[in-house]
């Protein structure tokens, strides 16, 4: 995860580790692999919500995301949390740095 101030905009890049199974793929034994994917992602800036993303199973494995925030400064904290269809969740956070 990275959050860099470029001009007056902070660009946040996030890479998540997740299988993002559609539920349509078959394993080596021809059995369907159950759907397992991130459904909701939220981002906050200093605890205030800035982005809510609802996802289906069409986001690629190990999801990648870039978004941009206006009005953020160096040292501010950007946090990203995801929730998947199995009820698992993970959070990453990082302080904004100068590009």
């Amino acid at each position, binding site marked *: 995860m990275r959050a860099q101030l470029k001009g007056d905009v902070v660009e946040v890049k996030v890479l998540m580790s997740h299988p993002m199974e559609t539920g349509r793929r078959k394993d080596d034994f021809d059995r369907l692999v159950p759907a397992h994917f991130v459904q909701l992602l939220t981002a906050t800036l200093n605890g205030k919500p800035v982005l809510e*993303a609802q996802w289906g199973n069409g986001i690629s494995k190990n999801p990648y995301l870039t978004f941009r925030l206006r009005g953020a400064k160096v040292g501010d904290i950007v946090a990203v949390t995801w929730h998947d269809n199995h009820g698992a969740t993970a959070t990453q956070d990082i302080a904004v740095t100068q590009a």
Partner: protein
Amino acid sequence: MQRRDFLLGMAALIALLPARVFAALWNKAAFESVRLNDASRHLDIDAEIPSADIQIIAPDRAENGAIVQVEVKSSIVNTEAIAIFVEKNPTPLIANFIFSNGAEPYVVTRIKMAETSDIKIVVKAGDRYFTNAKNVVVLENGCG
């Protein structure tokens, strides 16, 4: 009730809570729709206005449909949300991004494409909906 059982019970309850809260938020009907029109309807999208103010950057040809990078930028005033659809995927709705508190109407992500299709973007601005599309030729199915 034993104190330990009570604590275990509380822990289990807390662990269950977020999943249930977020399951309520997730638009199941829209994401499970197999037709683009139905997915749009479940997102309450109507009367889409074609707009060149939605910029879509995606490859003309994708070798592998499992990873197609798409960049979307809206120059439409008061953009609140960007929805990404792949018309010919088994379930066309890929994602819906909702922006607030200074987030720019801009997103880059990587999506799966089952076959050659339009990537369709719908932008919500107030109670109006705008749309644009970009065709991507897919050489290898990425929805396995």
